[in-house]
């Protein structure tokens, strides 16, 4: 049995009397401890898919099974990192993490929660900033806190919705490496669903890439990433295999867009 099974998911939205299909017959499954990236151009429904996994939205048809049980709402088995607004601006970094811990572990005392929060803030390199409010932190630091919170909550599954999408290129690389290191070294490894539109990010992080197409959102391909772990970016990007794989993915990505638009003179 797979950890997560997505079965024939269809989502229709009605907005101002116009209905449109965000997802159509999306099916794939994710194994326990697997890092899966969902990739696609904007409007392919990848964030909608994730919001159903989070339990915030519900599908029009189909269902998602986690450990064989259908998802009916949010649950303590899933931790989430959004692109923005994951943190509560009125809580310090430390309180944000401790608040997350409190929701999954009601029996922990205040001191225990704070201790655990400090531990995870240290893991993401923010021990000096634990008493700062989100507004006093940079975007990258805020995402570090959000990751620390998701990890400190110690959920089986981690759902990440373009967590590094709004961060500058240099910090994005650093955060990807941090995330990978924390995930690879954890025992047991968490099941991660990571939404992105960045192909390099998807290759570097994942075991499997699910590529989606837009209008309506569908799974286009499922691609297994053939590189060993632990991965070292500097070494990896120099190998022939990496570049070949990357080019294949890119051509798939763009051929899909070209076929969708239907023209030969597509300016990308």
């Amino acid at each position, binding site marked *: 049995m797979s950890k997560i099974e997505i079965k024939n998911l269809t989502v229709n939205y009605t907005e101002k009397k116009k209905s449109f299909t965000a997802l159509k017959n999306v099916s794939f499954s994710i194994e326990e401890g697997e890092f899966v990236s969902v990739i696609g151009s904007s409007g392919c429904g990848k964030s909608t898919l994730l919001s159903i996994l*989070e*339990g*915030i939205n519900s599908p029009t048809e189909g269902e998602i099974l986690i450990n064989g049980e259908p998802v009916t709402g*949010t*649950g*303590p088995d*899933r*931790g*989430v990192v*959004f692109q*923005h*607004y*994951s*943190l*509560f*601006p*009125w*809580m310090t970094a430390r309180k944000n993490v401790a*608040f*997350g811990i409190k*929701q*999954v572990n009601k029996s922990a005392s205040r001191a225990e929660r704070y201790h655990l929060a400090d531990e995870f803030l240290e893991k993401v390199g923010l021990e000096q900033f634990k008493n700062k*409010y*989100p*507004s*006093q932190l940079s975007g990258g630091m805020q995402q570090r806190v959000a990751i620390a919170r998701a990890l400190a*909550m110690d959920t089986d599954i981690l*759902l990440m919705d373009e967590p590094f999408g709004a961060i500058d290129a240099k910090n994005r690389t650093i955060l990807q490496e941090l995330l990978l290191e924390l995930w690879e070294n954890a025992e047991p490894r968490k099941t991660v669903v990571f939404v992105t539109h960045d192909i390099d990010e998807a290759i570097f992080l994942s075991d499997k890439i699910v590529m989606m197409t837009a209008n309506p959102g569908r799974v286009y391909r499922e691609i297994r990433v053939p590189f060993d772990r632990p991965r070292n970016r500097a070494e990896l990007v120099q190998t022939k295999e990496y570049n070949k794989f990357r080019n294949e993915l890119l051509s798939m990505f763009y051929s899909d867009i070209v076929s969708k638009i239907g023209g030969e003179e597509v300016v990308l």
Partner: protein
Amino acid sequence: MNIQAKTAAPSADISEKQEKTSSGFKAEIFRRYFRVVHALFAVLLLVQLLPDKLKTETYASYVIWFAVGVEVLTLVVSAFIKKRESLNLFVDIVAFVYALLTAWTLATAKFDLLKAALFPPPGKVFWQFIGDYDKILTNVQSSAGIILQGYLLAIAAAIPLGLFLGWSARLGSAATYISKFLGAIPPIVYIPYGIALLPTFRSVSVFVIFLATFWPVLGGTMSGVMNVEKKTIDSAKVLNVNKFTMLFSVILPASLQQIFIGCNQGLTVSFVLLTSAEMVGAQSGLGYYIKNYSDFGDYTRTIVGLIVVGIVIVFISFIFNRIQKFLLRWKQ
């Protein structure tokens, strides 16, 4: 090597600082103390020495003592305030007080330009203030007690109710219209009902202030709750918070700014209402103090009352602002 560098750094820092202070010392003293406000202080003192035109006692010594007190305070504050802007603000306010007192002294005691019965000289007001100190304190306590009681009761009732109504999608929209209608009725018109239903002037006042505060706070809370960003609510939902935590740990702080707008409105209306009500029907309180003495033609005490009302309102607003700033310290 490392340790050396570390220990060397602070001492270098200190010596640099010392250099700075010794060279900039004069400039700093000059900047802090060479100000127009001190000239205004001197003018105020000199004006007191002019011969009085007013026939009655003018108590010039009280103005002098007051001014000396303010001047000492200014000098002390000048030495301690760090921010240049804050020092400027403080000094400008003191300068205004000096100028006002100078003009007031000239217009009353020295040249007798205003009707002496309506406009006593400043010294007499200070003298009266000191003489009436106990009475004023009792009246301040009476007024502030009523305001606090009605105001705090209203906040304690309106915020939880507003959170609950604003959070419930269906009740919220109906409640918005209802509270707009009920809140639009000036609270003062409830007074006849209050008098019919409640035993004392005090309880009627508390009741009216309760109503005056309740509606704006309820409205502010509901609109705050309804305007909380969906993403904030989503990030709480994915953490699996229960209903109570959602309302009080997420929705409440997220709508705090709007709640404060309601609280501020309630506070302003409460003062207006209470002082007016006291002028009509009370046996104590600041409104009563003013009205009572103006009825007897004692305008010195009337002015004392006016000044005290001003001080009390400024003081309470100051405290309120401090609380607001503290609770919203996470906002930039």
